[in-house]
């Protein structure tokens, strides 16, 4: 019997071209036993929500360094919810100014992980959050 694996989509919305952080997080989650779908650079919110739908992921990680987070993140959240994926946990990594953090959390972002975050913390918190959601089911 195959066990239930946590599936995570790691995506980079917007136009900045640096995906090192996204890859580090993808690798860390893989090493923690998750299945990580990596979609690469320059994704639109439509592309991300479509990939999340087709892959039936539990978690979406968005890496943004461009400063366009206040525009892009809420769009992704809205489209994912519109697709019926109401349980999907969405976290953000990258450069997010202190002043914008609360706003994004209020819009439904689970956590924001800035530079220097211990990747073990990321995988631990994700694991707990997925567990909490699936228990509600």
């Amino acid at each position: 019997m195959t066990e239930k694996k946590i599936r995570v989509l790691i995506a980079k919305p917007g136009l900045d071209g640096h995906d090192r952080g996204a890859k580090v997080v993808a690798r860390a989650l893989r090493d923690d036993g998750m299945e990580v779908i990596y979609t690469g650079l320059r994704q639109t919110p439509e592309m991300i929500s479509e990939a999340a739908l087709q892959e039936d992921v539990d978690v979406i990680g968005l890496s943004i360094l461009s400063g366009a987070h206040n525009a892009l993140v809420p769009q992704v959240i809205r489209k994912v919810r519109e697709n019926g994926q109401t349980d999907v946990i969405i976290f953000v990594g990258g450069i997010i100014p202190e002043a914008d953090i609360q706003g994004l959390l209020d819009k439904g972002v689970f956590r924001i992980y800035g530079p220097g975050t211990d990747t073990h913390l990321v995988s631990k918190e994700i694991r707990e959050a997925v567990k909490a959601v699936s228990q509600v089911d």
Partner: protein
Amino acid sequence: MALINDLRKGSRFALSRVLSQVENNTPAGLQALDELFPFTGKAHKIGITGPPGSGKSTLVNALTKQLRLHDREPRVAVIAVDPTSPFSGGAILGDRVRMLELQNDRGIFIRSMASRGALGGLSSQTEALSQVFDAAGFDFVLIETVGAGQSEVDIVNLAHTTIVVDVPGLGDDIQSIKAGILEIADILVVNKADRPGADQSRRYLKAMIEMGFRPLASSAGKHRMAPALQKDETETIGEQEALWLPPVLKTIASQFEGIEQLVTEILNHQHFHKSTGRWKQKETWTLREIVRKRIAGTLERDFFQQLPAEVFEAQMEALIARKVSPTTAVKNLLTYNQKSSKPQLSE
């Protein structure tokens, strides 16, 4: 089941959920497969295999786009399998990176899956997932295997048409006559054909194929058919000519070169399969394999459910101490289960 109804009506959300249930082998997933089974058997399943980095994902991307250009606008599903780490059990599924162009077309559905410990180039649930897509009305199901070496040949049990992707410079003519992956090809593709050595690779592969078909080489070419679409669907081929000589094509998938011809050959192969009765043969074989695997799985599960853990552990200790051989241990365990009360067969 509401989810199944939604899936049949075209809900992508329902399809995606059912795919997960089936992949995870949950009771709901098994039930879904049961309910969907009557609707299967229509899709043309195409396997794409080859070494890591040969351009399988890029080829799938190009191929899917080309298939969609057809007048009938066939719906295309893609199952992309990537390896699971043997250490962490996790996986990076990166095939979508090469298929971003396909993301906005609602006639296409791409699902990545991890091999989850299976070694034949697929996951144990890949076949089941292809059934779900089949029942959901997809005309083509493209199955991209894990980057394959020489013996990951499970795809041949599943696909109607197997495409083996090679690249220039991977080896000499000895590599190409080894058993295994090249043998399973219905169509061979030398991708990245703009690289040096493409023509040489193509020659090696052609030579290998012709070697296998030597008795018929004189008539080779005779059976090759015009594109299926220009043909009368009911036209049949005589027994004597029922031979498929795998074509060897050159492509540059990233630039969309040679893809039209590849689609033509796929449709040729489909027509060949249908008109020679091999389509049905393949179905029979695939279904037989499914049942055999199910039986093995069910018996194993029932066996361990019935066997008390301490009895198993006792035999293991005796085994480690070299007091019994593995064969004797198996015999003892089987006898133990037979002696204890007759089990009820679970469904």
